[in-house]
Each structure stands twice: as structure tokens, then as C-alpha cells.
């Protein structure tokens, strides 16, 4: 296990490019890096970001990827990030999991803009990929799809990702961000294996701090006194809760704008309400799909070992755990449990509606006060006189001409619409 950047302040300029994969603790890592960026800068590690999702926006820009109305904020974000990275003297970190799906030409553009081609002074690029077994990744990806308006059943999702043609959008995206050897073919084909680092997510039941230890080692953060408070998380849902969100999607997708879906369904219902129902059965891989996933993972493990990448953790972590006997099918959930989740969802929506009614009443009161103040202003003798003069002038051609000259002199037309 070779840390990607030890020690932070010595050696050539380095960029640690963390390109995935989703659902491997990336949000937590990015949150820690963002909140501690000043302290890290003092140690020679640069995490250039003005906002928590700065690298996400940069990735959207690099890949020209529309994403729920964030496009405007993403304009030019990659070039700005690359410029900040090039300005860093020590080690810089770029991290976002959707970079996993970048094409070779996008990878080429990214590496070039980060200084990988700058002659003798070129930047030393390290690619870091955090990875988790497919046994956990597959259900997690389906759930993430459901939280992004998908109405696809779990069975159809599994069919699509198992289709060797991979022609559907679902499977294209899934394998684009999950197929470890292919991601590394695209991101690492010009790099020696020692500059490609895999951080494996520990198996279920491992000590809670172990994944952070591995991240910390890969990014050269060991020994730094960082604030590790968990502020951002992407909590998972149980089986009946996921089934409920999917039903909501089917009923509301066409009548609920994307800009309302995110705060109301994804945040309020899924993250703030339904994720608290932790006693529900968890989403798992169906037992009949399990052998296929494990075979695939085994071929990945062999490939990774053969290529000689630096593995932080244990490559065997990728083999996943045996199937669970108590499998709960989200396509045929317990209706009683779904009803329970639905009642919780209605309660949350009522509370939110009540809060918004309060806001509405307050704003209506403020508007009323403003109107009253405006009317009092209108009743002033000076205003009434001016109004009479304008009305008189507007009634004749000469007067209208005079008003037109006056308005032009003021630099605006109060009549424009």
C-alpha cells in the first residue's frame, strides 16, 4: 500500500484525481476535504472549491452532462477548477464520482488541463478509485435511480444491467460508473500502475472508521487533525420505502416539475423522512442474481491483481458477502409496510404544507402592509397633482410628445411592458 501523496509538501506537483465510484463514501470524503480545506492548505494539500459541490459542477461541465437545472452553475466550472489546480504548488485533490463515466476524449482534455502534458514540469497525476462490491452496489444504484425519478422496477433494472448489449441508458450509466477495469482503462491507460490507487470499501461489519483510514492513507491525510463530523450523508432507504418512492414517481413524475421534485420527494420524503424508518428490511441483491455478480467481481479482482495497481485495503473486499436468506423483493413489498411509510410521508407533507402556509400568511401580511403604505403615498397632494398633470398631457398629441421627451430625458419609459 503506497500512499498517493506522501508527504504532502515534497516532490513534484501532484494531482490526486479521485474519479469514483458512487456509493463508496465519496460525499463524506468530499465534505471533510471541503470543510478542512484551509487546514489542508497549510499542510500543502490543495482542495480548490468555493462550494461543497464545486467539483461536481466541474465534472458536469467537463462531460457536458445536464443535471436537474444545475447547468448554468456548471458553465466554465472545469476550466476554473483546472486553473486553480495548476496554481497549487504541492498536491491538489480533485474528487467526484461521476467522473468515472468520462470518455477517453474527456479524460484526455481533463489530464491536459490539469498539466499532465506540461513538458518537464508536468504534473504527476495519480488516479484514485474507491470501490465497493457489486453485491451492495447494484441495489444501491437502483435505489439512487428511484430517488432520481426512475419508475423502473427492480426486476427490470436487473435485467437491463445484465443485458450484454448495454444499450439502455440505465445500463450505460451503471457500467460507466461501476465497471472498475473499464473505468481504469479510460482514466489510467497512460499511467503506470503504481499511480493508480484503489481504495476498497470494507465489508459489512467492519469497524466504522476503517474506510476513512483507507481514504486517509490514499490521500496522505494520516496524522492531520481534521474535523471529521458527518454533515452530509446520502442515507439509504428500506425496501417498502423505496417501493413507495417509486410509486410516487409513477403518479407524480409528469405533474411535478424537476425543480420541485428534488426538495419535496428526494430531500423531504426520501432523505428527511423515509430514511429514518431503519427497522424496515434493507434492499439486497436477489439470491438468483448473486452468482452472476460474484463471477463478475471475481474476474475484476483477477484483472486488478494482474495489472498491479496499488490497492489500499483488500482487493478481496470486492467479492461481496454471501446472499441473505431473508430477501425482501421491492417489486412485491409488504403492503402493510408501504402503507406505514406512506402515512409517515403524508405526515411530513402536512407539516411542510403547514409551514409553508405560515410563510404564505406572513408574506401576505407584509404585502398588505406594503400596499397600505403605497396607498398612503398615492394620497399625498403632490402625487395627486402630478397624476392630474400626466393624465391631462396624455389626452393631447402635444402633451404626449412632451411626456415622451420627458421620459426619454429620464432614461426610461414608465409605459414599457
Amino acid at each position, binding site marked *: 500500500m503506497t500512499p498517493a501523496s506522501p508527504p504532502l509538501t515534497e516532490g513534484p506537483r501532484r494531482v490526486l484525481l479521485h474519479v469514483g465510484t458512487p456509493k463508496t463514501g465519496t460525499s463524506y470524503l468530499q465534505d471533510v476535504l471541503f470543510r478542512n480545506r484551509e487546514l489542508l492548505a497549510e499542510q500543502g494539500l490543495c482542495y480548490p472549491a468555493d462550494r461543497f459541490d464545486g467539483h461536481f459542477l466541474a465534472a458536469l461541465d467537463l462531460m457536458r452532462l445536464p443535471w436537474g437545472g444545475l*447547468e448554468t452553475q456548471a458553465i466554465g466550472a472545469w476550466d476554473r477548477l483546472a486553473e486553480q489546480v495548476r496554481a497549487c504548488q504541492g498536491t491538489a485533490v480533485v474528487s467526484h464520482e461521476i467522473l468515472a463515466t468520462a470518455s477517453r476524449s474527456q479524460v484526455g482534455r481533463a489530464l491536459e488541463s490539469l498539466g499532465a502534458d506540461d513538458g518537464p514540469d508536468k504534473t504527476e497525476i495519480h488516479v484514485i478509485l474507491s470501490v465497493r462490491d457489486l453485491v451492495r452496489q447494484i441495489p444501491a444504484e437502483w435505489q439512487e435511480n428511484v430517488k432520481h425519478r426512475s419508475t423502473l422496477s427492480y426486476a427490470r433494472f436487473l435485467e437491463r444491467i445484465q443485458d450484454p448489449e*448495454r444499450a439502455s441508458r440505465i445500463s*450505460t450509466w451503471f457500467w460507466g460508473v461501476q465497471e472498475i477495469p473499464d473505468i481504469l482503462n479510460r482514466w489510467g491507460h497512460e499511467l503506470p500502475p503504481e499511480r493508480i490507487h484503489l481504495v476498497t470499501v470494507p465489508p459489512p461489519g467492519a469497524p466504522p472508521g476503517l474506510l476513512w483510514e483507507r481514504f486517509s492513507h490514499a490521500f496522505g491525510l494520516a496524522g492531520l487533525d481534521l474535523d471529521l463530523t458527518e454533515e452530509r450523508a446520502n442515507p439509504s432507504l428500506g425496501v417498502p420505502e423505496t417501493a413507495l418512492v417509486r410509486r410516487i414517481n409513477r403518479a407524480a413524475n*409528469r405533474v411535478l416539475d424537476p425543480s420541485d421534485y428534488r426538495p419535496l420527494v428526494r430531500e423531504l420524503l426520501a432523505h428527511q423522512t423515509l430514511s429514518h424508518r431503519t427497522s424496515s428490511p434493507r434492499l439486497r441483491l436477489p439470491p438468483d442474481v448473486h452468482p452472476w455478480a460474484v463471477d463478475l467481481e471475481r474476474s475484476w479482482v483477477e484483472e486488478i491483481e494482474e495489472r498491479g495497481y496499488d490497492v489500499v485495503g483488500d482487493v478481496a473486499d470486492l467479492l461481496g458477502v454471501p446472499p441473505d436468506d431473508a430477501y425482501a423483493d421491492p417489486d412485491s413489498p409488504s403492503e402493510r409496510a408501504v402503507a406505514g411509510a406512506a402515512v409517515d410521508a403524508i405526515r411530513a407533507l402536512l407539516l411542510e404544507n403547514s409551514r409553508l402556509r405560515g410563510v404564505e400568511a406572513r408574506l401576505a401580511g407584509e404585502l398588505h402592509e406594503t400596499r397600505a403604505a403605497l396607498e398612503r403615498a398615492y394620497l399625498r397632494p403632490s402625487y395627486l397633482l402630478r397624476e392630474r398633470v400626466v393624465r391631462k398631457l396624455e389626452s393631447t398629441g402635444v402633451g404626449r410628445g412632451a411626456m415622451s421627451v420627458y421620459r426619454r430625458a429620464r432614461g426610461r419609459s414608465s*409605459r414599457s411592458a
Partner: protein
Amino acid sequence: MTGTVAPPDERRAWGWVAHLRSGGTTPWSAWTGPAERAGRFLPGAQQLELLRRLNESAGPSPVPAELADRVLHASAPGRGRPDLELVGAESGSAFGPRPVDPADLPADELVRVASSLLADDVVATGLPVPEGRPLARPWRRHYRLVGDPALADPLRAQLIARGRPPGGARPRIIVLGAPADRMLADAFTARALDCGGPSWAEWVAILAERDQLAPRVDLARTAGVWAERTSPDQVTLVLDPQRVGRLVGVRSGLAVPPPLPAEAVDLARRVAAVLALLVTPPTRAALLRETLAPLLVGAPGPVLGVPEEHRAWLTGRAERMREQLRRAGYPVVGGATGGDSLDGVLPVYATGGVVDVADDGVLGLALAVLLRSARSGPEVIA
């Protein structure tokens, strides 16, 4: 990487790249000639096939080298299939998507790449230099022209160019409409040239499910807003765009533009999606209307048609709108052959309207516009 000798299959692929760069049109399946590696990586099958189609469309004069280079370095934007390897020239990895014969790629995949290149072209071209606005004629009739965007917006622009800007004291409010199916297609066109969005079929389905007309199609609502803002007796409903001129004191010369064909609208919609990541929304709308749309005017092909399954809904909504307008009592100009009638808002469902836009047609148009843009240069296409 470019200095090492490539395996034979890869050399065949590099030979095809060189062939396409020099204007060749031979399909990959028929290609045999090898060449040495000439880049960091082989371009994807989508990019190579797009260049081959451009070469086919280019005729005797070749595709400009700069455009060929841009095509080979482009990536498909948004979600969809990644850059694919050529069947028979695989890198040897057992991983990643299956290699393809580029001839088998659906047109939609090629349009994805083409729309990204067109978005770059539109941004590089920029906005045309605004023409000087003539002084407003002091004796002009005061008006406001609202309603169907594909009719009202160009007529208003022509009036402004003739020194007749909208506004003034007690203007006549001209609410310009057409049969509801035409207005719906016009509203979708305006939306495509503003912000892109879902496909025509999806958009109509959403409106039908919500039982909601697009705002500028709802003439009763538009007229009501203006009646409240000014006075009901200032509002006139005009259902024949040819008669707008006389109402504003222009005897002749106002031209009503024909609707953009379905394929042109769909191409604009796709380019708009990419532009969203390149420029701000106001600039995007201006670029689509003032830089891209002029390149699409005159494109052949049928216009958009309302899907059969949503016609009953639209007819019902149009009848309700007619009733609302009748109750409001606005004067009506046009709407019936040789006369005036509110029946002019009812849909006519002309035959030949396109419901599902064919990707092949959109691709053909995209190729033509890319070539025209590359040959003309920014200053000419603007």
C-alpha cells in the same frame, strides 16, 4: 504513445481514420488499409461514423480539415452510450461496452455528437451585430402584439424595424392566435428555441395529463391578463396574421414566416440542451433564435402534428377557450374563410403532421448545418 507500433487490427482502424480524414466514405466493414497510430487513442465509433456521413454529405468539396478534427475529438454530451470501439479493432480488454460496426449505430447516437459540435459552432459564431433601431414614427398607431409566439414575435420585430415599436398611450392589444394545434406546435418551437426540454410527444403528453395549455396558447388567459392591465375594450382577438398589418396602420409587406419543420425544431431542442452547459439562459435563447434558427429556416420536411391520442383533449380545451373568449366579448378579426369567427381557434389537424420526429432526418439536417457552418465561417452564417 504515438511512436509504438500498433497491432494489425488497430493499424487497420488507424488506416480508416486516415481515410476518413482525407474525405473517404468507405464503411468500416469494407475497409482493409492499415496505417500507423496517429493519436493518443482511437476515436469512438460514433465520431468516426459521423465523419464518414459528413464526407458522404459533403459531395465534391471535402469536409474542412478543422471540422474533421473536431468531430474526431468530440464526445457525446449527456447521458447515453459511451464512445464505442470498432468491432474487429478492439483494444483487447474484456471489459467495457461491446464494440460495434459503426454502420449499425442508431442515428440518435450520431445526432448526440453532432449537437455538441453545433452548440460549439453557435457559441463561436456569437450573436449577429444588432441593426440600428429606427426612430419611432410619431404618427404610428399604438399597439401591443401578443399571443402565438411564432406569429407575434416575428411580426412585432418587423414592425419595430419599420419604426413602429409596441407601446404608447392606450394601445390596441392584438392577441394573435391560430388553430390550437398550430399554436401548440408554435409554443413547442418557441420552447425549443428558448430552453430545449422534452421531446414533442412527451411535452404534449405532459400537458394533456395536466389538462393545461401552454401559456401562450391560452388566448383567453392572455387576453384576460391584458384586459385587466389596460381595459377590455382595448383588446382585439386576431385569428388571421395577414390582417395584423392593417390594424397597426401598415398596408403591406409584413411577412408571416412559415413554421419550422419538425426535424429542425428537434435539432434546435437538442442543441439547446448542450448550450445550457456553455452559456447562460438569456444568451442561450438569443443564440438559438438569432444564430441557429436562421440556419434552419427553409429546411425541408413536414411540421409537427398533434398525436392522435391527445386530439380529443386538445379539441376539448380549444372549445373551452372559444367559450371563454365568446363570453369575454372581445372583437374578433379573421378565423373563418372571408370572415371573422372564434371557430378559428379550433384545431384543424392537417394531414402529414409529424408526431415522432425521425432521428435520420434530424441527423441529415445536422450534417447539412455543420457543413454549412464550417464552410461559411462564423461571419457568414451569422
